[in-house]
């Protein structure tokens, strides 16, 4: 292995915002392109990885890449308006420039997903990183068995990518893909209700040969795990995507530190994707 180049660690690239799509009241989808064609050509990422997006003068935030890993030169970020930087990102217009560094983090170990069924369970913003996995699976459809995606949120109108998923219904059925969208606390919602774990009976995957990727608020994981293990899912194939405060994204600034004395982790480098056994052996992870 060649010696790492320190100057590359924090190297940022200029990116142009091409398009903005409003998804929900608080989330927008942003399509970016690298300004430098060479970077655009060579830049790669894995589903589950994230970038650090800088708005000079406002700050920098970690954001999961939510587009397909196959689309070269372009990438999409789904961003919730949450604070200083993200509110400012929401004001960007096509043509505006930002600076991006990354991709960082381990990403999902996609090779361990091959030739198995795939279950994706997202709650709220968790859909962002999982969309990247989902699109990856669609792009490489032959590498995967049956696919189920459970997309949940509190209110129906808060479901991320709901329209996109709905539009896919017909192809999905043909392709053995089950799409389940559920709103947990919305009296006006016409579709399915209840939390994600309650819909595990509607999946089209075989628990014994399925890989699962989950992303949502920490409290979702516990009930999900219990349920899944009861149903016979193999814990070695359950992955989650975690979140912590982050500044550097490369294991330096310490904000994303988690764990205990025997297992001290940096969410950004050792994660953000962890598997079930990480979770149960590292107290405090979720």
């Amino acid at each position, binding site marked *: 292995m060649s010696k790492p180049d320190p*100057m590359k660690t924090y190297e940022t690239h200029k990116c142009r915002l091409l398009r903005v799509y409003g998804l929900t009241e608080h989330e927008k989808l942003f399509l970016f392109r690298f300004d430098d064609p060479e970077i655009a050509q060579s830049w790669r990422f894995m589903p589950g990885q994230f970038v650090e997006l800088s708005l000079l*003068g406002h*700050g920098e935030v970690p954001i999961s890449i939510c587009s397909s890993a196959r689309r070269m030169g372009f990438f999409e970020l789904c961003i919730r308006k949450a604070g200083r930087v993200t509110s400012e990102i929401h004001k960007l217009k096509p043509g505006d*420039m930002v600076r991006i560094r990354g991709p960082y983090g381990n990403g999902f170990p996609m090779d361990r997903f091959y030739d198995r069924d795939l279950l994706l369970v997202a709650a709220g913003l968790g859909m962002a990183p999982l969309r990247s996995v989902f699109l990856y699976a669609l792009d490489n459809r032959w590498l995967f068995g049956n696919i189920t995606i459970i997309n949940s949120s509190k209110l129906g109108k808060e479901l991320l990518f709901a329209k996109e998923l709905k539009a896919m219904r017909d192809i999905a059925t043909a392709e053995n893909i089950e799409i389940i969208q559920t709103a947990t606390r919305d009296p006006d919602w016409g579709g399915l209700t209840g939390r994600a774990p309650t819909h595990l009976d509607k999946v089209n995957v075989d628990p014994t040969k399925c890989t699962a990727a989950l992303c949502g608020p920490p409290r979702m994981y516990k009930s999900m795990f219990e349920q899944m293990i009861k149903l016979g899912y193999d814990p070695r194939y359950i992955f989650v995507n975690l979140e912590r405060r982050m*500044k550097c994204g490369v294991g330096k600034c*310490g904000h994303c*530190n988690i*764990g205990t004395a*025997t297992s001290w982790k940096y969410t950004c480098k050792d994660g953000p994707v962890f598997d079930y056994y990480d979770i149960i052996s590292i107290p405090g992870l979720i």
Partner: protein
Amino acid sequence: MRYVKLPKEKVCEFLERLKSMGTLYGPKKISEKFYDFREIGDVKEVEFEYNRTITPPRKYFFPERETVFTFDTVNVEIHETMPEGKPIILFGVHACDIVGLRIMDSRFIDDLPDPYYQIRRENGIIIGLSCLPDEYCFCSVRRTDFVDAGFDLFLHLLPDGYLVRVGTVTGHKLIENSPEYFEEISSEDKDNFAKFETKRRSMFTVQGNWDDMRYRLELHLDHPMYMRESDKCLGCGNCTLTCPTCRCYEVKDLPTLDGTGGERIRFWDSCQFRSHGLVAGGHNFRPTKKDRFLNRYQCKNAYCETTTTSYCVGCGRCTYFCPADIQFKENLLEVYGTGGGA
């Protein structure tokens, strides 16, 4: 390893020589009781018998506050402000602090190295200095009381000078280039060195080895010590800011008044502060003082693969400089199961 002797009467001249090579930093007495690493103007100010400095040596490679780049918001361009790479000569570093620097290296010069740190570190010369422990030291149980690596030269006190261990090529060059200051060691020197080491070892208030501390700690995450002690805590961050291996930092953008430019700075942060675990929307991963207190105990006792020690090197700063007088060592021992005191 090569050993030479620096006789007492040559020490000042040797320091002068070091000073001529770059900026020399060393321990100085800064108040009635405290010492700190400072730039050395007059080599007579160097304090050879100090217990511990208030700020750790890492500050020379990872400054308290630095500009990482300046930016131009109109063209969305950045200009990184890299350190100049001037030689930094750090004299008088104790063994534990040398391990501390190696722990810093393990995090800052990994597969994604931090250029700001790395450039400074590559321009650093480290001269170690032997010491005798006081009641706050517990480097012995951390296996950091004696070092084999991480220094260019290491000076061990003899009655009439110093026994010098040479750790790196830079160290060899230093000696080759100024042979007039050094002598070969005699058998008497060897005896004296052994005597000093024996004496040093015997002086520790805790003995043994704490390699299994991390397991014991983990088994007792709910130990009442955490609640009791964190109640006394001020959350002031002194323990982490003085620690030779703490390295959390915070980042902030400072736009200029007219908004066309600005700078991004980074500065030391502490896991003892509320905002350390706070995320957008108001959720805090470490919401209480106890959570933050526990976090430090876990982090410091975790295992560093590079040095094969814990992240805590046992320098005693976090206790010595704690305004609330919270005893790290004693608290660890309490959880460890041997009760308070050694």
